[in-house]
């Protein structure tokens, strides 16, 4: 029973950690789904959103503004920063690259990553900034069945709830709104979408803005978990295997991919890691992704693309 309890604890912890990866992965999916661009800068956007949030929050709290009001104002300020970022990216990077192939756009997002990382630290600082929006302690459940109870981290549960709500909102946005459908049309073919009157520059601004707001949402959870700091950009590397497994075009896929990666890497680290020296969870996620690529290249939920020649 003890062994099973321990396994269950690792599994639950892994699944919940996976949902937090999904929060970052969702930003990638959104931009890829709507514009066909793999946005390498998503991790840097989480960092920028987090820095804008925490620095403005600290600024307002230090000046005696009530915490709840400061949080609301700081979230609004961070959202404005992400909107400005989206507008600048659209105007100076993506605008001139309309109708270029996906690889050019991908390379452009690598450049955007470095600019956001550098500018974000230059403007807001490069220290560790604590953010305390959610509780970070844990519940110990089923203590009567398992010795010491099963540990469930509260921040991870909050992350799960937020991810669930985000998926619901995004699903409605893509399926039920005119803008959402226009985004999907642009993703299929820039030129064709433009020819039927879809304003591509406006659509790209909207999609980068929404991705920025998703990044801000991820930053609230990850910032509370780690403190807002540069290392948050590395979360993009965690999101990659999630995307490969779930599929680059599927919002539910990002969630399922996150669950598989989270549970897989934690179980591997705790049970397999002991046998081969440990420290395997980082690459084990990519092993899982490779296995999926071999049997289903488009991911578990991705759209199968058939091109007729």
């Amino acid at each position, binding site marked *: 029973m003890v062994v099973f309890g*321990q396994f269950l604890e690792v599994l639950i912890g892994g699944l919940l*950690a996976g949902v937090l990866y999904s929060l970052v992965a969702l930003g990638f999916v959104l931009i890829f789904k709507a514009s066909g661009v793999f946005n390498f800068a998503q991790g840097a956007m989480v960092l920028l959103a987090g820095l804008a949030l925490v620095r403005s929050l600290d600024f307002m709290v230090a000046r005696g503004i009530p915490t709840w009001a400061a949080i609301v104002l700081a979230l609004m300020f961070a959202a404005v920063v992400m909107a400005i970022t989206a507008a600048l990216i659209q105007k100076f990077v993506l605008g001139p690259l309309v109708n270029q192939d996906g690889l050019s756009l991908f390379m452009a997002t690598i450049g955007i990553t*470095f600019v956001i990382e550098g500018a974000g630290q230059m403007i807001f600082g*490069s220290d560790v900034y604590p953010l305390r929006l959610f509780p970070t302690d*844990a519940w110990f459940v089923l203590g009567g069945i398992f010795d010491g109870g099963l540990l469930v981290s509260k921040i991870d549960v909050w992350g799960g709830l937020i991810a669930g709500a985000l998926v619901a909102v995004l699903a409605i946005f893509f399926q039920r709104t005119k803008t959402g459908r226009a985004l999907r049309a642009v993703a299929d073919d820039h030129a064709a979408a433009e020819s039927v009157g879809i304003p591509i520059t406006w659509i790209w601004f909207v999609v980068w803005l929404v991705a920025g707001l998703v990044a801000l949402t991820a930053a609230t959870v990850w910032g509370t978990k780690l403190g807002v700091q540069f290392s948050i950009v590395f979360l993009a590397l965690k999101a990659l295997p999630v995307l490969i497994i779930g599929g680059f075009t599927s919002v539910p896929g990002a969630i399922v991919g996150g669950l598989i990666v989270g549970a897989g890497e934690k179980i591997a*680290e705790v049970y397999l890691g002991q046998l081969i020296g440990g420290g395997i969870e980082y690459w084990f996620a990519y092993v899982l992704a490779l296995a999926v690529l071999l049997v289903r290249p488009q991911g578990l939920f991705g759209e199968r693309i058939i091109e007729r020649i």
Partner: protein
Amino acid sequence: MLRKTLAVATAAAAVLSGTAIVFSTGPAMAQNEQFIPRLVYRTGAYAPNGIPFANGAADYITMINERDGGIGGVKLIMEECETGYATDKGVECYERLKGKGPTGAAYFSPLSTGITFALTEKVPGDKIPLLTTGYGRSESRNGAVFPWNFIAVGSYWTAADIAIQHVAKELGGIDNLKGKKISLVYHDSPYGKEPIPALEARAKLNGFTFKAIPVTHPGVEQKSQWLAIRQDRPDYVLLWGWGVMNSTSIKEAAAVAYPRDKIIGVWWSGAEPDVTPAGDQATGYKALMLQHPAGKFAVHGDIEKHVYAKGQGVGKDTNGQVLFNRGLIDSLIGVEAIRTAQEKFGKKPLTGEQVRWGFENLNLTAARIKELGFEGMLAPMKFSCADHQGADQARVHQWDGKEWKIISDFYTADRKILDPMVAEYSAKYAAEKKITPRDCAKES
């Protein structure tokens, strides 16, 4: 302020360009100037720890110029190069800066065990000392095999040995270690792996069970490791982290309800940036001190008077923090090595080879430490051809939620255990690199 902004902007430019960038804090070099390169990281994942150290090191050198007019009339010229804690950029910075100044670099101080490993291969050819204050290859204490490395004040083996001594003291005696479980949560890098041989030797000697648990760079995801610790329930956890890994470890320990006062960090896991992000969860956490504490001493008064009061310096905001103070000590040792070398070679800019003589003959007595304004921060240390470490002591401090409190007296590492390890590992290195060890008996 302008200078600080410039430093941050330049370092940020390094991130933008993805290459190492050099930042000069002095004017164009003249003939009567001694060049000191500084490898720093003011941006990136490890910047919160890199910045205060770089500030302390820089402000001490500025203070020497402003208060004393340099060393023996020779002005010190410093340049920073941003490494981002990356070994490749560290080597790039080294290559770019090693030949600068009228006599080349006086010494290098990379603040990275990974960069130290890489430069250890290069410095013998360029004849430049490598100062690694409290980090680097533990066996490089042996100056006969590592003539250019100076692992000043303490090595990771020193730290590991002293951490176990402190655990033994808390348990009521060295014999009480028998049957206990001690785990090491370490940064999966050359830095994090360094203490493992010393801890294995101690485990064998004292009869405790030792387990090493790696955390992948940068250390933001540690849930698996701490769930494993929750299941294994070790009596103590030693923490060998850097940067974000430290505060994440403390938070994860709190999440699995592992008592913070049973965690002892190495001296690179015991500064303000390691505990403040964890808030109240860090209360009770302990860490080794590389002798010195946080706080202000006589030397800080000189820096405030001769540097900050004149609107100079870069570290006013971090003045007195643990890592700022360590930066001061790092520059102190370098400056005193140059001063010692000047006594033999004359008051002029010196080559790296001449500065090495200064390191090997550096004797910081209690009186000299007091004179330099470091009384209360450092115990006496003496280097030699055979001993490139100079000291074996450390203390322990504990975070009370607001500040670090010293909770122990000085411990001295057990050289009966460590010296044979230094001899064995350095002999292995010499054989591997085909190095003929120097005969220090003849040189001294």
